C-alpha cells in the first residue's frame, strides 16, 4: 500500500457566487502519474492552484502527506510547478534557474552544483548551463523549467499544460520523456491537460473534469472502454453516440431501441439510472461483406456506405443503417482489407460488450 501524497476532500471553489470547482474528492498515492483532463474552463487550473496554494478553497481540505495545507503558504508546501509559458527567470542562466530552489532551501553550494548537473542531465541539457533562457528553443526552455522544478526534490510535481506551446512532433517526444523522468524519480505527478491523447499516453490514472466536477476517473483503458456518461464517451476518443428511446431486458441481453425502431443487443449491466444513450467505438465495429459469415456477432446489421475517407492508417466509413441511424466505422488499412465503395451494401457486426449503455 502506497502512502497518499495528495488528498482533496470535498474541495470547492466559488468566485462571487459562481461555483468553479465543486466537491472534488481525490486521493493520489505516492509515485502516481495522474492527469486532470477536461475542456477549457472546467476548473483544472483552479484545482491545481489550490493544491499549490495560490488559491484558497472555499470549502474542503487539501492534504499533502497527510497534513492539512489550508494554512500553509505555497513557499512551504514543498511542491514543484511547471507552467505552460515556462516562467523561466530571464535574467538568470540555465544553471542559476535550476539552482534557484536549492538556494532558497539553503543547500550547500557543492551539493547544489551536483544536483543541478544531474537535473540537467535527466532532461538532456548537459552543457547548456551557461545559456540564458532566450537563447534556447521552446522545447529546451520547457526542459529547463522541468529541471528547475524537480531539482529541489519536491514531494509532488504539478504541471499545467506544460506541452501545449510546443509543436506536435516535439510534444509527442516530450510525452515519453516526461513519463520516463517521472518513473525514474518515482515522483508523484499531477498533470493538467485538455488533450485526451496526452492524458491517455502518460497517465496511470485520468481524472476527467467537467463543469467543475469530476465526471469520471480511472485507468486510461478503462475510461476508454467503459465511459459512464455521454460527455466522457465523446471527450475521450471518438465514439458513435446514439439516443436510446426504450430498453427491454431479455434473457441474455439488454435490448436498446435506437433511431426509429432499430434494436441493439447490449450486455446486461447494472445502471442505477435509466439508460438514455449508448456509445459504440468506431473501431469496434466489424465490416462484413453482404451475405456470408458474421454469425459470432450479437448484432448483425445491414447498412449502405455513404462516404469513405482514407485516413492512411485506416478508412473512416460513414454507414447508413436506415431507421435514421448512421454509424462511423473505422476499418484498419491492411494489405488484405479492401474498403467498400460509396453505395455498397455491407453488413456491420457489433459485439454486445462493445455497446456501452449510458445514463447521462
Amino acid at each position, binding site marked *: 500500500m502506497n502512502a497518499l501524497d495528495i488528498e482533496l476532500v470535498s474541495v470547492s471553489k466559488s468566485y462571487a457566487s459562481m461555483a468553479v470547482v465543486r466537491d472534488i474528492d481525490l486521493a493520489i498515492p505516492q509515485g502516481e502519474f495522474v492527469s486532470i483532463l477536461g475542456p477549457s474552463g472546467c476548473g483544472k487550473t483552479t484545482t491545481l492552484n489550490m493544491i*499549490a*496554494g*495560490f488559491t484558497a478553497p472555499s470549502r474542503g481540505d487539501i492534504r499533502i502527506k497527510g497534513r492539512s495545507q489550508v494554512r500553509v*503558504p*505555497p*513557499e*512551504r*508546501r*514543498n*511542491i*514543484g*510547478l511547471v*507552467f505552460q*509559458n515556462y*516562467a*523561466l*527567470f*530571464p*535574467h538568470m542562466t540555465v544553471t542559476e534557474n535550476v539552482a*534557484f*530552489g536549492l538556494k*532558497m*532551501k539553503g543547500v550547500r553550494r557543492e551539493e547544489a552544483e551536483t544536483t543541478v548537473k544531474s537535473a540537467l542531465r535527466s532532461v538532456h541539457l548537459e552543457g547548456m548551463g551557461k545559456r*540564458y533562457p*532566450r537563447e534556447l528553443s521552446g522545447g529546451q526552455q520547457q526542459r529547463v523549467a522541468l529541471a*528547475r*522544478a524537480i531539482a*529541489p526534490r519536491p514531494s509532488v510535481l504539478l504541471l499545467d499544460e506544460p506541452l501545449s506551446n510546443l509543436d506536435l512532433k516535439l510534444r509527442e517526444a516530450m510525452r515519453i520523456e516526461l513519463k520516463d523522468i517521472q518513473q525514474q524519480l518515482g515522483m508523484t505527478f499531477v498533470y493538467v491537460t485538455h488533450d485526451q491523447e496526452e492524458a491517455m499516453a502518460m497517465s496511470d490514472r485520468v481524472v476527467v473534469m467537467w463543469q467543475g466536477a469530476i465526471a469520471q476517473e480511472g485507468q486510461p483503458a478503462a475510461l476508454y472502454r467503459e465511459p459512464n456518461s455521454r460527455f466522457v464517451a465523446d471527450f475521450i476518443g471518438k465514439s458513435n453516440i446514439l439516443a436510446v428511446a426504450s430498453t427491454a431486458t431479455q434473457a441474455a441481453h439488454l435490448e436498446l431501441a435506437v433511431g426509429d425502431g432499430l434494436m441493439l443487443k447490449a450486455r446486461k449491466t447494472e445502471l442505477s439510472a435509466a439508460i438514455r444513450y449508448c456509445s459504440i467505438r468506431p473501431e469496434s465495429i466489424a465490416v462484413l461483406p453482404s451475405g456470408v459469415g458474421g454469425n459470432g456477432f450479437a448484432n448483425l446489421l445491414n447498412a449502405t456506405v455513404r462516404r469513405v475517407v482514407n485516413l492512411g492508417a485506416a478508412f473512416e466509413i460513414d454507414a447508413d443503417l436506415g431507421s435514421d441511424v448512421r454509424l462511423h466505422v473505422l476499418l484498419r488499412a491492411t494489405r488484405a482489407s479492401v474498403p467498400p465503395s460509396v453505395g455498397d451494401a455491407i453488413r456491420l457486426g457489433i459485439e454486445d460488450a462493445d455497446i456501452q449503455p449510458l445514463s447521462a
Partner: protein
Amino acid sequence: MNRLISIFYWFSLGAVLCFITLPLIVVVAASLSPTSAVTLQPWEWTGRWYADLWSSRWLDPFLASVKIATVVAAISGVLGLFAAYAVVYERIPGSDALMSCLLSPLSVPQIVKGVAVVLFLSMIGLQGFLGTPALIAAHVVLALPFVTRMVATSLANFDANLDRAAQVLGASKLQRIRLVVLPMIKPGVLSGVTFAFIISFNNIPLSVFLVRPGDSTLPITVINYLEYSLDPVLAAVNVASMAFILAVIFLFEKIGGFSAQLHGGSK
C-alpha cells in the same frame, strides 16, 4: 503608393533630425565664437569661453545643480519604486484611484506648483527652507509622477508567473522582490531615475521661486546672466551641460540600461 509612404517617412525623419540637431549645431558653433557677440563664423574659433566655465561663477551653480539632481533622483527613485510596487504589484485596495492621485501633479503647471510651494512654506513658517531643501522637495514632487509611471509600466509588464515560480521554489516575499522583481524592473527604475535627474537638473519654472540669492542652480544662473548680457559663454555653458546630461544617460544606460528593457533583463 508604397513609394509615396517611404518618401514621406524619410522626409519626416529628416525634418525631425534637423529640428533636433540644428539648434545644437548653432549653439556649439556659437560657443566657439571668437568675438564676444554671439556670431557664427565656423572658420575662426576659440576655446576661451570654455576656460571661463571653471570660474566659481559657473562651477558653483553647476555643482549645486548636480547635488540637488542627485538627491532628487535618489529620493524620487525610492519613493516611486515603493508607490508603484504597492499600487501595481500588491494591488492594495483603491489602487486605481491611488495611481491617478500619484500622477495628478502632472496636470498642475509648474509655475503654479512653484507659487504653491512658496506659499506653503511661508504659511507654516518655514521660509528658512528656501534654497536647497525647498528645491529638492519641489523637484521631487515634480519628478515623482514620471518615476512612478515608468516603474508602474515595467511592473505591469512583469509576468506574475515568475513570482509564482519563485514562490513554489521556496522564496519568501523579500527574496522574491530582491531576486526576481527588482532585477526584472531595473531598466524601468533606472530610466525613471535618469528622468528625475534630468528634470531636476534642467528645471527653471519651479526653481525660479525657490533659489536663494548667491545659492543658485545652473539654469537660474544662466537666466540671470542672460538679463545683462548675451555672450558666447552662455553657449559654452549650454554645450557643457548638454555633454554632462548625455554622460549621465550613457552611464545609466551602462548600468543595466534602457535597451535591455527590450529583452527583459541585462546579461
